């Protein structure tokens, strides 16, 4: 598609398509993390750093490898992922609907915006004790803390998405006599999708953070629990494996959202 576009342009008008979002090629992007790991390895081996706290990367990798062969490792990941999925859905769907309503209708905005403005700055993690109190130590408290974090981000970003759709597109629809509902579905919603995807991308990080924190204190399985437990028994390498798994999950989920965005919004030209 891209090549085709470039070719057709030259024969038509001397104007280049807008510049693409530049990504570092993977080998270049991997250089500095790799250098850091090597430095860390050398420092650990030469005793420059305390291996009790900073075990050499190769020894962590070995622990990682051994852990992947236990069923507990996979069930921890599975349980954390399913908690995230449920909590994410519970927060994102209402957040999206409330956000779209706020963007489209002034009455909805005047009802919800002050509430959201008041609650949003509160770090959601501070609510955890209350949520544990209400929902107990079971699964529901994990769902709820993730859902709350996701809800606000989705509501705010979907609202901004709708409100940032340039007025000219509504003018076009109105002039062509589009009905109210047609206008929502052919202008407001597609125009808001980039904002909605921005919301989803930010939500991945927040959801992971809240889940891990909730699992620290109120769970007996899951990745967060495993890291906390490793601390309490001083299995430092297991703790590092936990960090790595959390980072990889965050990376993979963010990538998945970006993939979906490119797939469903090809018109952004990314």
């Amino acid at each position, binding site marked *: 598609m891209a090549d085709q576009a470039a070719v057709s342009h030259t024969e038509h008008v001397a104007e280049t398509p807008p510049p693409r979002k530049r990504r570092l090629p993977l080998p270049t992007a991997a250089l500095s993390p790799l250098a850091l790991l090597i430095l860390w390895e050398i420092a650990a081996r030469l005793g420059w750093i305390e291996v009790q706290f900073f075990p050499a990367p190769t020894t962590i990798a070995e622990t990682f490898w051994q852990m992947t062969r236990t069923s507990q490792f996979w069930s921890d990941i599975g349980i954390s992922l399913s908690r995230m999925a449920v909590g994410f859905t519970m927060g994102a769907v209402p957040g999206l609907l409330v956000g779209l309503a706020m963007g489209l209708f002034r009455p909805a905005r005047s009802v919800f915006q002050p509430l959201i403005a008041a609650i949003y700055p509160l770090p959601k993690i501070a609510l955890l004790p209350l949520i544990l109190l209400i929902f107990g130590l079971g699964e529901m408290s994990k769902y709820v803390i993730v859902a709350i974090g996701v809800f606000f981000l989705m509501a705010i970003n979907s609202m901004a998405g709708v409100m940032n759709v340039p007025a000219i597109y509504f003018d076009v629809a109105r002039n*062509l006599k589009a009905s109210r509902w047609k206008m929502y579905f*052919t202008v407001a919603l597609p125009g808001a999708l980039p904002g909605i995807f921005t919301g989803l991308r930010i939500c991945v990080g927040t959801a992971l953070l809240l889940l891990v924190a909730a699992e620290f204190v109120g769970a007996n399985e899951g990745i967060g629990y495993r890291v906390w437990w490793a601390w309490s028994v001083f299995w430092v390498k297991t703790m590092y494996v936990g960090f790595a798994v959390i980072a990889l999950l965050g990376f993979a989920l963010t990538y998945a959202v970006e993939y979906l965005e490119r797939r469903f919004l090809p018109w952004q030209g990314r």
Partner: protein
Amino acid sequence: MKPKIAIRNVSRFFDVKGGTFQALRNVNLEVGAEQFLCIVGPSGCGKSTLLRMLGGLEMASTGDISIAHDNPARPLTAMIFQQESVFPWLTVEKNAAYGLQVTNNWRGAESAERVTYFLEKTGLLKFRDFYPYQLSGGMKQRLSVARAFVTNPEILLMDEPFAALDEQNKLLLQQELGKLWEEFRSTVVFITHSLDEAVLLGDRVMVMSSAPGHIKQAFDIPFARPRDFLELRQQDDFHHLTRQMWELLRQEVEAARAQEAGRLSQERARRNG
């Protein structure tokens, strides 16, 4: 004959910080069916506001606008804007089809043919599956021309459609629009700040005053159609007309400048005081 558009004593006020701003004052004009009317005026004279009223995007504060809707099967108006207005999330083809689809006037193969026809006419057929980000500014503007023509409106409303384009593209698009219009006569109200453009395209040209805008004078353009724009630009009549209009317009542009300067110094005084 009953005019297609009749505007009587229309004024428009806007609420602005610290009072009201009068954009239009007692505008009176008539446009005949299938007439190509151009309106020129200094920037800020309310000509876009007038056009938006005709397009149903804005209400008159006082006065009366009546537009004859002769054929209910055709939409009354379609607007072409100065800014980029093609939907970035639709392909070229779907953008062109938008007006018919959004009003449930899509008639299968017949409509598809119509879309194809106007994409061909505007040189966009090869790019039917492209998204707007892949198009140049001139192509996007041609697409909004196609989108308007596809709906087959009784009245085409154009708000400086070529103002944002480079000179070469502008010349080409003017010529293409002239040809399209000669083929599909409809009533046109065309806003521009270019006297050349107004005289080349219009049957009639109205010069508006600076704000609050009203019609200063109307000129009938005598040139026969089809018009050859290159040829026309060489004629003495053409120069004579644009010269006459410019004399008139210059006073208004100078008045608009003075207004602007006055407004700025007032603002500065308020800020400092």
